């Protein structure tokens, strides 16, 4: 069976900066893959390429075997849902309406979209804020709102861009537990970008490591964090002491 997502030799340059350098990897059905790396390693650029917000200079991205054009709304329709690292709520709409906009991708009827949105909000334990305007919510809630909206589009692949970063540890772990339940919602694969290694180690089945746009390591989380190149580029010597 072909991979759900295949990124094949993809490069992206912004002026003098090679943000993505000949990156090749796959996301398989049924897996949770996390992408880690230092700030500026090209993680968000990679997500923008996959979700069609950027066009690669070189290389091809295939979703279910089909080459993707850089058209974000088409990517969403094909089943690639995404969150934004810098949260982008529809501020003047209620939380429910924000999530309904995701649900409208799969239904024309307002009642169906509202019902779907309420289910998703229930799963993410956000019923209490459903009717509040999205402006003025705390960051933790807005991060969940990003997930809810993406999930409401009924994606096959969901791209989570630092949904845990910045949350207090207790909330981060609670959210991580919910992320492990995404397959219940028909999500075939999860790809995440994350800095919180505690969460990555808990949730990820496979990890890839980016540094200065290039893929420098790939494998099971426990193996990857022991590789010298990864410790050098990202985790730092201190981390080596921690994992012994």
């Amino acid at each position, binding site marked *: 069976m072909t991979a759900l997502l295949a990124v094949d030799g993809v490069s992206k340059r912004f002026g003098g900066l090679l943000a993505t350098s000949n990156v090749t990897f796959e996301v398989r059905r049924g897996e949770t893959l996390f992408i880690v790396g230092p700030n500026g390693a090209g993680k968000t650029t990679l997500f923008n390429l996959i979700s069609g917000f950027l066009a690669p200079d070189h290389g091809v991205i295939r979703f279910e075997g089909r080459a993707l054009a850089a058209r974000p709304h088409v990517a*969403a329709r094909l089943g690639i849902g995404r969150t934004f690292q810098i949260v982008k709520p529809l501020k003047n*709409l209620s939380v429910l309406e924000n999530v309904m906009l995701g649900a409208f991708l799969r239904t024309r009827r*307002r009642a169906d979209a509202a019902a779907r949105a309420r289910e998703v909000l229930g799963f993410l334990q956000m019923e209490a804020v459903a009717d509040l305007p999205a402006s003025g919510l705390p960051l933790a809630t807005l991060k969940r709102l990003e997930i809810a909206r993406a999930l409401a589009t009924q994606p096959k692949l969901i791209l989570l861009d630092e949904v845990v970063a910045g949350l207090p540890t207790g909330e981060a772990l609670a959210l991580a537990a919910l992320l492990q339940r995404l397959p219940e919602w028909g999500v075939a694969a999860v790809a995440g970008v994350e800095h919180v290694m505690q969460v990555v180690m808990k949730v990820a089945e496979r990890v890839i490591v980016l540094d200065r746009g290039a893929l420098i390591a790939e494998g099971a989380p426990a193996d990857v964090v022991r590789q010298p190149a990864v410790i050098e580029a990202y985790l730092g010597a201190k981390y080596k002491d921690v994992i012994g």
Partner: protein
Amino acid sequence: MTVTGSRLVIAGAVLVACLGAPLVIDQTYQLNVLFRVFLFAGLGVAWNLVGGYTGQLSLGHAAFFGLGAYGLAIGSGKLGLPIPVALGLAIALAVLVALAIGLVAFRLRGPYFALATIAFAEVLHLTAKNLPDVTGGEVGLQVPLIFPPDAPSRWFYWAAVVLTALALAITALITRARFGYALLAIREDEDTALACGIATTRTKLHALMISAALTAIGGALYGSLFLYIVPDQMLSVDISNEIAIVAMLGGAGTLLGPLVGAVLLEIASELFKNLFQEAHLVIYGVLIVVVVLFLPEGIVGTIASALRRRRGRA
């Protein structure tokens, strides 16, 4: 009765009252002022689909307004078509031009979009001035009277009321449908709209085309009332501004805002014109500045926000 049901009954009663007004008011002057009120209400509601709900600040709606009048005049006068056919042609022309303008202007965001719409309207303005064989140039063009010649003011008034009601009904239906939610999403954040699978450019084009069709009807009515049109009157920046101001004064992105804005602005400007002659423009300007500074959400928008806050506390 449901909330929607009782709202429909109230809307129907108001519509009947407005349509019945000429039975009480039969002076041509007063009816013409009321025509202007409802004409700009209808135009403001039509503009609101693009400028309010979708957040795309068009300052070039005179283009569609002028095309409505010129389309009617040229179709009926020069081509000798029956009036309904000429009117249909004028609307179709405005929709096609909206498509062409939108395909270019919607590549731009924010103030650049607004500037592009001004530029396109000005291109049409200058074209109309410099194509005397088609548009009559600066001399102008005769427009046929589209209503029976006895008591035409009444007919024009009724037509403007119907235009406003039509624009309001279309807006109310759109805001309850998926399309309306897509417009709001585009206004709030285009990237999020795209991530929700919304074809943002196509959605904006559809909104602009609907808006242009309604605006063209308004232009055709206006031209036919005056029987004679010149480019400086039909395609001027003043028309574009007035349409946008009516909507923003009342409340962009609210259903009834443009109606409230048109009632206030048109009646105020008429009163000031009689009281202060040329100085009325100063007062008109001050009024706009006051609203923009103190009620940035417009009159209806500010009231709606206050009600929401009160409900939130309760």
